[in-house]
């Protein structure tokens, strides 16, 4: 484990430097806008990675938590006049409570049963969002007030970039620490063998619940921020395709790899932009990426590259 410490800490410095210097290389607001979207997506992906990487289980309902964060934030600011910062914290707390309540029953499931249950969660949240028109605006969604902290309004894209970059860095830090904590190592053991981990006295159930709640909070924060950034929320946030998009980011980057989740989010957010928008080809694209990654690079990009580098040394 000492080895991984040495590997990880410089990487955080590098990430900070890259995030700080990136605006200099970005020619216009459009590129910065893409960067903000990448950072927000990456926060959600890092969260999902905690669940998928730790527990070795795939969730295809994670967008439900993104939507809970986004709508939670939107509803309490627009309808109750909460300040956005309190709203974001409140929405995250709400998502944590929801996750905690359903974690115990859901995490007792395994393999395809768990996957189906997470899918069910996503579908239920989607149905609620569409039907509770008085609260959520129904299928049309609802506007969300812009982000104000104290007297400062986040009006420029660059403000948002700064905020998203700081939060992304913090998320990476948190995620790395979680993976490296005694609990985290125990959980990574689960991915290999749950029985073995349990035999060594690890309280498997408790760690899984913790990973689930943490991943829900990451997703909710990402959703809240995106809601304030875009000024709008709609039920498609909780849609199946959005959940699959998040799962694809994690799988492509590499399960159980924090930087993999960031890379996956960056690639899958930036590539469609580079290709001039996918114009209805999103589903084909994500489906292909998902299948091809699993067939040819089942460990994902970052772990596969890391392995190759280590072999050369």
């Amino acid at each position, binding site marked *: 484990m000492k080895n991984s410490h040495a590997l990880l800490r410089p990487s955080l410095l590098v990430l900070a430097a890259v995030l700080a210097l990136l605006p200099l290389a970005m020619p216009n607001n459009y590129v910065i806008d893409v960067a903000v979207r990448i950072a927000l997506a990456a926060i959600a992906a890092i969260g999902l990675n905690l669940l998928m990487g730790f527990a070795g289980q*795939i969730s295809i309902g994670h967008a439900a938590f993104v939507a809970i964060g986004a709508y939670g934030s939107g509803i309490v600011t627009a309808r109750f006049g909460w300040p956005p910062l309190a709203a974001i914290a409140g929405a995250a707390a709400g998502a944590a409570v929801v996750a905690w309540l359903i974690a115990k029953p859901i995490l007792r499931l395994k393999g*395809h049963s768990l*996957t*189906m249950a997470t899918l069910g969660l996503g579908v239920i949240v989607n149905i609620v969002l569409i039907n509770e028109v008085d609260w959520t605006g129904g299928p049309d969604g609802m506007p969300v007030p812009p982000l104000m902290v104290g007297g400062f309004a986040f009006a420029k894209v660059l403000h948002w970039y700064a905020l998203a970059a700081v939060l992304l860095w913090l998320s990476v830090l948190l995620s790395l620490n979680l993976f490296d904590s005694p609990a985290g190592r125990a959980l990574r053991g689960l991915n290999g063998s749950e029985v073995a981990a349990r035999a060594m006295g690890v309280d498997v159930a408790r760690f899984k619940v913790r990973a689930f709640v943490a991943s829900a909070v990451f997703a909710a924060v990402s959703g809240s921020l995106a809601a304030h950034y875009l000024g709008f929320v709609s039920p498609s946030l909780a849609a199946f395709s959005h959940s699959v998009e998040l799962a694809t980011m994690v799988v492509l980057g590499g399960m159980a790899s924090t930087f993999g989740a960031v890379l996956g989010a960056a690639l899958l957010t930036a590539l469609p932009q580079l290709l001039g928008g996918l114009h209805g*080809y999103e589903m084909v694209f994500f*489906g292909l*990426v998902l*299948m091809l990654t*699993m067939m040819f690079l*089942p460990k994902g990009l970052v772990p596969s590259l890391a392995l190759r580098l280590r072999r050369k040394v």
Partner: protein
Amino acid sequence: MQFVFSGLTTGAIYALAALGFSLIYNASGVINFAQGDFLMLGAMVTAALLGAHLPYGLAIAGGVLATVCAGLLLYRLAIKPAGDASVVSLIIITIGASIFIQGVVQIVLGKNQQTLPAFSGDASLRVLGAYVLPQALWVLGTAAVLVALCFAFFRLTLLGKAMLAVAANSLAARAVGIPASRVLQLSFGLSALLGAVAGVVAAPITTTVYDIGLMLGMKGFVAATLGGLGSAGGAVLGGLIVGLLEALMAGYVSSAYKDAVPFVMIVFILLVMPHGLFGARSSDRV
């Protein structure tokens, strides 16, 4: 009574979807997340061929054929090359396939909702004081026939028995000369066939659209799990129960939330009786 009939009809559709799940699960231990998309694909291709002025029978044949090809290709191009990948990997691959199929259909056949004409008119019949669409009888009849065929296939034919053998122990099956890979391929083709037929028969009632497979697939899975994965009879019973509960929910509580029923059920079922009705010895009440 009205709710019971509409429940049984949707239930029969779910039962057919569940049967497809069971078939592949039986042979390979994989849950095919693209199963619902087979139903969608069959109906959508049929609708498109009808739009091209083909006779109805030919259009159906085309839709079913296209779906079977999709099922075979899914195995050939995605499942088989993955080799001995873990179950999670295979799940991810079929999820990818599901999204991919939806995407292709959306591009090629459009995003609009399609419907198929009923097989024998729209005049409803009166049965036991309830109005029943003739198409509902088609659905129930088709389900009954297909279930009987499946049953006969596994019990009476060499191929069916070979499939069960591969499911029980693929290595041992290969040792006695059963071509396991071909049997697996067949199971994908067959479940695609089941799905396509179910999709076509159901489409006059449910209509069809590129993303309907998600709902149908999920509910089929709930039905299969309720009945006990891998059990054909269980799949049918599970489908009917899910359909009934959903119809009662829509009739007496809220139609907006009827789609939530199976999803709440699934967590409950998996926790309370993970083996389903037919897996657990204690519950042979049928």
